[in-house]
């Protein structure tokens, strides 16, 4: 018994592991090649940095969502929460002027970018924590809690902003959205740093491994002595934190916080995570995959716009490619195992 399992165990799995991450990556590479052939200026650094900057907002949330989905959870509220945190950041950044739809471009009365950032991530983390609490203590499934959250946070955002945007931040805050370090956009750097940190946490800390364990089998994790409820709450705190961070970057980038920001982001974000190979049933997935998934969506959108494809056709193509990318990944995995 032992000897047979041993051999197949080793070789089979490692090759599989490798190609698992290659599935979406291969797909991404093919897309880039196609778009470059169609229009060579597609791979101009300017455009690539554009893409990086664009994916950094949903990408940041997708990092947090990876934690959530790894525990077999889901968070549908991220788009609304982003709008909410953005509005909070704006109120803080602009101080008392915020409520009166102020349009002055210099936010001298405000509390500055640091306070705004802090407020956004704290509010995001708290809101996430509350949802985690409802999930673990009230035993309401994540889908339901965060669906409720989606509605509640949007309502709160509209209430505090009275429907309008809050605009005009000072230059130091705007730098986080529009600045460059060398040739690289600041949002892209924030995203990269966050991705690396998340990768380290998930792969090399006890906490990260516990997240995988809870997603793999919550009951077994509990019996093995993990504090399942705390871990579950923590992942919603994390995704909330990232929604707050993304909100700050987005507001900085647009020089405005809008009540309608982030509508539909939940689906883009979940797509990125799932295309990246993370299983909706929990326990399987990686940050690397999520980054590739986010890049794939970003490249696809940008590439289609780049070629001025009609928006109707864009919808059709993006939907089909989403399905195909995952189907290809599945097929590849089943081939490898053979």
């Amino acid at each position, binding site marked *: 018994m032992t000897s047979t399992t041993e051999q197949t165990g080793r070789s089979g799995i490692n090759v599989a592991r490798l190609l698992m991450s290659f599935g979406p990556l291969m797909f991404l590479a093919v897309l880039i090649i196609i778009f470059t052939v169609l229009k060579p200026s597609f791979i101009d650094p300017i455009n690539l940095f554009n893409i990086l900057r664009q994916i950094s907002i949903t990408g940041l949330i997708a990092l947090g969502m990876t934690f959530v989905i790894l525990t077999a959870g889901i968070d549908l509220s991220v788009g609304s929460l982003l709008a909410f945190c953005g509005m909070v950041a704006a109120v803080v950044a602009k101080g008392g002027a915020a409520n009166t739809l102020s*349009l002055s471009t210099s936010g001298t009365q405000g509390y500055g970018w640091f306070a705004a950032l802090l407020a956004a991530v704290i509010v995001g983390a708290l809101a996430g924590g509350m949802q985690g609490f409802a999930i673990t203590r009230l035993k309401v499934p994540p889908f339901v809690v965060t669906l409720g959250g989606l509605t509640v946070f949007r309502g709160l955002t509209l209430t505090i902003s009275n429907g309008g945007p809050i605009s005009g931040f000072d230059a130091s805050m705007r730098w986080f959205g529009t600045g460059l370090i060398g040739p690289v956009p600041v949002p892209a750097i924030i995203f990269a740093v966050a991705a690396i940190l998340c990768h380290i946490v998930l792969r090399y800390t006890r906490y990260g491994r516990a997240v995988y364990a809870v997603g793999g089998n919550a009951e077994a994790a509990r019996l093995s002595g993990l504090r399942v409820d705390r871990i579950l709450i923590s992942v919603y705190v994390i995704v909330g934190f990232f929604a707050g961070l993304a909100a700050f970057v987005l507001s900085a980038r647009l020089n405005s916080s*809008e009540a*309608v920001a982030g*509508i539909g982001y939940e689906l883009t974000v979940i797509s990125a995570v799932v295309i990246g190979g993370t299983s909706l049933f929990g326990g399987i997935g990686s940050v690397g995959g999520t980054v590739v998934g986010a890049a794939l969506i970003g490249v696809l959108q940008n590439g289609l*716009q780049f070629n001025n494809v009609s928006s*109707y056709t864009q919808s059709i193509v993006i939907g089909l490619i989403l399905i195909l990318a995952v189907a290809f990944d599945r097929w590849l995995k089943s081939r490898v195992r053979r």
Partner: protein
Amino acid sequence: ADKLTILGSVPNLGFPFFVHMLNEIKAEAQAQGVNLTESDGQNSAPKQTADIEAALVQKVNAIVISPLDVNALAPAIEEAVKAGVPVVTIDRRVDGVEGILAHVGADNVKGGEAEAQAMVAAFPNGAKLFHLQGQPGAGPAIDRNKGVHNVLDPLKDKYQIIFEQTANFARAEALSVTEAGLAANGKPDAIICANDDMALGALEACAARNFNDVKIYGFDALPEALVAVRDGKLAGTVEQFPGQQSRTAVQIAVAFARDKTEPKEKLVLLTPIVIGKDNLDKAERLNETK
């Protein structure tokens, strides 16, 4: 007698334009001393229909509504008319319903035309254009798009739309779409946008590339856009006088509900104008800017 109650319904309170509209309705209702039942269509025809139905059950005395869709709201409004409730439509009309008390509006198609004409005036010798459209399928997006094309299609030789994409009326999307457009096509002469949010997003994209002389046109004359026009960042924005429309509509509705006063005109049409740096004072919401 009891205080009158009217229903004020707008298509989507997620957008500042309609928030302003409802606020004006509210203010005028207060001035007229009537109760107001508020309704937000939440961008859904069934939702706005349901709100009208609920209002009819509650026997409101009049309805002031900016319908989400010219066709889809027709059955509900027809029901109201049949129930003997006076209806005044604002901004958008409903199609094929007899017996509407009055319509107060500025046509979105006309607005689109005005926007394009302003651009044509700025570039008499022709121009390369980007065009950012609104949410696909949404009424104003369709009408504004139509207006723009009404003007530009006959002038195809001089004015080429080299990049035409939807940005769903959203600032963030307009920013990324414009970035892609700039990277693919280089700098255009002008960008025509179906609302101010998208114009402000396009503005950010151009500013990031230091393309500061691109003429960007918005729509709705939101305070934020007015500031940008004042500062020379936007070339113009279309003013449809939503506040004036709203107040006029409420006045007509209340007058009729009180003592059957027929409106002087069944059709009050305000001509949309393009607000530029030189005619900023015509903007309805200038007082909200600082």
